[in-house]
């Protein structure tokens, strides 16, 4: 059968994508394909132009289909070839520049859109071109021109505070000029956001140094032969030497008009994406108007391309496009945003669920009608976006518990989420790739995220789903035989399990983290492995460990817990929550003297001075004069206690004294994970000793029960009974022996609740109590050495360990 001629006008994302869909349906056998592109380049991802403008990506990186792709698929590509005429009776198109004529059997118009140039006085020259200094923001050429001008500019103005305009502004900031955004509407991104959302976004953007002018109508562009400023309706002016117009898009529909097709805002199509006037002409993308709507996002475009290809190739002669529900996930200037459907309620019965936290730039709003989601905005935290966008798209009923729509309550692990995710759920909203499609690709032999993305195109649109795709690929590969051995390594950079690594470290007498890297990986350091190695070396060498501070997390370099704003917390030792009146007064006086922003009782029965800048730490420690409470470290933390037998009328054992002895002995002992302890004077367990890493509970008869492996944090587990003993000293002995065994055998960051559960309490009891392995004496001795080697780190207030150890911000010498 003779092949038909398919001619495609437009080599942008829509045209190329439509052709890909045709090829995917075997259309290469049915059609000879010729494409005409107006730009002198191949086909690129317009969504990423803002990254090119900001310098994050090279123009080379945003090309979608290399020239080789056209060749391999037998497509004739004509670049720099604008079509100015379609002769429908003769079924031919003509290239404007050369007059070349190409016949077609089927024609696809995918000419896209261009920047809308608002009618502002002085914006254009008499010949219709933009005044020098003013640019649209739509093509690679626009990007190049803007970058060239930005380098010479002092002040740039972007007209338009929509998504593209803000992206342009972000790009301009990176080029060092002062940037202003002038916006006609009352808030930013009014297509996607409501007024409070727009206000929060404005605050976030202004913090980046961009000035925003709202409700500002530009009446004139100043300057005789190039842009020198803008004049506004309110009589004010703003000087500038670079102007970017981003006031929306205008469909490139002129070709349709000239060809006698029905054009309203764009070329009008039916549900098969065909012109309503001509059975041989299809239209997709931003130049198409379907049921009165013109779409400017990629997801609808992909759907249209599929319908077009199904219909054209006859794969599904009844393929029909029914319009798209607009939901989009994007990143504006580093702010993550998801938006779907309505931004404001329309009817009285519409229900609004809303959460605002302006200081952190978090805003969530959902509009629900009859139990179904009809609109939503998520800003700052979009962790629920995937679920909500799916519920929106499918019109599926929402759970009655509305709070769970905005927040993850409880802690379902990632794995459960991937497990539970239905096969049909859409992972890549740009390219419409489902979980099942990713699974099929893995099953077909692709084993890396990269190759799966290349095959399925998942993650190749806006890129925001890449990490989810990678997780899914790992998940689908999960049960396979070729298990990654590195999961058993103690640290990722060194291919040894913990026992193997310990053996090598002991044999070769490696006592510092840098010597481990030197000896075992040719000196190649790995940042994430450093603290894990430091922890292990401290446990193995106690006093002989060679402390290199760069190997430790910041908390362990300055002996406080870093807070979200970069300040630290100060928690002095307070065994069993007991202190003297003099100590209490002193803590209060120190907090007042140093203007500590927050004084808080901790969950570990201690007093926390929160929000202390790094450079104030030494002075506060000196003034308090109490030892460190180690509240920052992976180490022994604290021992809680109830009031015990001294005063409590139910008390059976002296839990306060025991807590004091425990803290005095084990304070500062480093370990793979935190060690939180408690002692309870009776089985009522007011100090919650049953859910601690190690807990001691007094029972009738003067005895103590020792529990290990308990937890009551993100994970809740009742500790297992290790043994019952008669004295405080025995509690110290078995608790210490257990902790030492845990120190030597647990994985880094593995808490005792996992460790004990992994090995089983019977095994733990055999080693610790019955000495089945004959290592009890060695464990006791190693623990004693660690106890002896521990020094109060807050003494570094008097003798710094490294230069500028506590400096928060150092003024440069020459300033």
């Amino acid at each position, binding site marked *: 059968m003779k092949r038909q001629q398919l001619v495609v006008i437009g080599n942008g994302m829509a045209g190329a994508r439509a052709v890909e869909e045709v090829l995917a349906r075997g259309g290469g056998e049915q059609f000879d394909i010729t494409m005409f592109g107006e730009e002198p380049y191949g086909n690129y991802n317009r969504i990423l132009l803002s990254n090119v403008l900001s310098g*994050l990506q090279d123009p080379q990186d945003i090309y979608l289909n290399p020239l080789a792709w056209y060749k391999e698929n037998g497509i004739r590509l004509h670049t720099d070839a604008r079509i100015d005429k379609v002769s429908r009776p003769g079924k031919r198109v003509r290239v404007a520049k050369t007059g070349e004529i190409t016949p077609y059997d089927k024609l696809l118009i995918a000419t896209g859109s261009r920047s809308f140039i608002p009618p502002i006085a002085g914006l254009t020259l008499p010949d219709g071109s933009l005044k020098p200094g003013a640019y649209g923001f739509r093509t690679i050429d626009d990007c190049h021109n803007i970058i060239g001008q930005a380098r010479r500019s002092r002040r740039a103005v972007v007209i338009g505070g929509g998504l593209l305009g803000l992206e342009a502004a972000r790009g301009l900031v990176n080029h060092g000029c002062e940037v202003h955004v002038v916006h006609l509407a009352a808030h930013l991104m009014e297509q996607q956001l409501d007024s409070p959302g727009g206000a929060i976004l404005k605050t976030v953007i202004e913090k980046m140094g961009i000035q925003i002018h709202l409700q500002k109508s530009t009446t004139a562009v100043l300057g005789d032969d190039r842009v020198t400023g803008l004049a506004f309706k309110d009589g004010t002016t703003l000087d500038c030497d670079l102007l970017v117009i981003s006031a929306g898009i205008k469909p490139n529909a002129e070709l349709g008009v000239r060809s006698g097709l029905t054009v309203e805002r764009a070329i009008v199509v039916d549900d098969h994406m065909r012109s309503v006037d001509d059975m041989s002409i299809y239209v997709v993308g931003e130049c198409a108007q379907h049921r009165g709507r013109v779409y400017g996002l990629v997801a609808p475009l992909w759907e249209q391309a599929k319908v077009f290809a199904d219909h054209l190739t006859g794969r599904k002669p009844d393929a029909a496009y029914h319009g798209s529900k607009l939901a989009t996930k994007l990143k504006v200037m580093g702010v993550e945003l998801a938006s779907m459907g309505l931004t404001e309620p329309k009817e009285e019965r519409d229900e609004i669920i809303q959460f605002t936290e302006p200081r952190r730039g978090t805003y969530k709003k959902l509009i629900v009608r009859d139990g179904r989601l009809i609109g939503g905005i998520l800003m700052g935290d979009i962790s629920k976006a995937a679920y909500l966008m799916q519920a929106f798209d499918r019109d599926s009923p929402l759970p009655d518990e509305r709070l769970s729509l905005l927040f993850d309550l409880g802690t379902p692990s990632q794995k459960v989420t991937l497990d539970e995710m239905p096969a049909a759920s859409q992972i890549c909203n740009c390219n419409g790739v489902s979980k099942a499609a990713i699974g099929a690709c893995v099953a077909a032999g692709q084993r890396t995220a990269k190759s799966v993305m290349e095959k399925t195109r998942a993650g190749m649109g806006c890129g925001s789903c890449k990490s989810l795709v990678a997780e899914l690929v790992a998940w689908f590969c999960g049960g396979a035989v070729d298990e990654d051995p590195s999961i058993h390594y103690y640290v990722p950079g060194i291919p040894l399990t913990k026992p193997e690594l310990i053996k090598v470290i002991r044999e070769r007498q490696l006592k510092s983290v840098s010597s481990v890297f030197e000896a075992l990986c040719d*000196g190649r*350091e790995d*940042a994430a492995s450093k603290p894990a190695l430091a922890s292990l070396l401290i446990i193995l060498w106690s006093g002989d460990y060679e402390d290199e*501070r760069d190997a430790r997390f910041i908390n362990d370099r300055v002996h406080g817990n870093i807070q*979200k704003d*970069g300040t630290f917390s100060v928690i002095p030792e307070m065994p069993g929550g007991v202190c003297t009146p003099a100590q209490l007064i002193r803590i209060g006086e120190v907090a007042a003297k140093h203007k500590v922003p927050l004084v808080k009782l901790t969950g570990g029965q201690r007093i926390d001075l929160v929000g202390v800048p790094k450079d104030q730490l030494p002075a506060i420690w000196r003034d308090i004069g109490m030892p460190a409470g180690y509240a920052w470290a992976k180490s022994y933390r604290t021992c809680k206690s109830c009031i015990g037998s001294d005063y409590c009328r139910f008390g059976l054992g002296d839990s306060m004294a025991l807590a004091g002895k425990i803290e005095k002995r084990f304070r500062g002992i480093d370990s793979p994970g935190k060690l939180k302890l408690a002692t309870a004077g009776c089985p009522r367990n007011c100090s919650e000793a049953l859910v601690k890493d190690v807990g001691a509970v007094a029972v009738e008869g003067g005895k103590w029960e020792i529990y290990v492996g308990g937890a009551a944090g993100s994970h809740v587990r009742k500790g297992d009974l290790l043994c019952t003993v008669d004295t405080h000293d025995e509690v110290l002995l078995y608790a210490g022996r257990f902790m030492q065994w845990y120190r030597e055998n647990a994985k880094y960051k593995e808490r005792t609740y996992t460790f004990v559960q992994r090995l089983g309490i019977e095994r733990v009891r055999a080693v610790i109590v019955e000495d089945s392995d004959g290592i009890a004496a060695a464990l006791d001795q190693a623990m004693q050495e660690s106890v002896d080697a521990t020094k109060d780190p807050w003494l570094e207030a008097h003798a710094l360990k490294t230069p500028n150890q506590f400096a*928060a911000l150092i*003024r*440069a010498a020459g300033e």
Partner: protein
Amino acid sequence: MRREHAVCALAQIPPGEGRSFDIGGHKVAIFRTRSCEVFALQANCPHRGGPLADGLVGGTTVVCPLHERAFDLRTGTGLGHEDSLKSYGVRLSPTNTIVIAID
């Protein structure tokens, strides 16, 4: 305008660590690796403003102390994510003073 600033002696930054500096109003994190290379980046993580000078340095990578975002010390490029940092030119004077170029 590009200007060079003599910031401090190399010895003011311990090997493998970073420190935050105020250089004529610019907040800059300067790092000295264990192999004695020196790098300068914007001081705060674009994610949540974490103090990068307090991060862990390994090879030519720094990891933010707040949420473990990694960056390439040489270029400021994000590793495994899309944020990136401004990076500054650095040289050592003959007397081992760290000199930073700021535009």
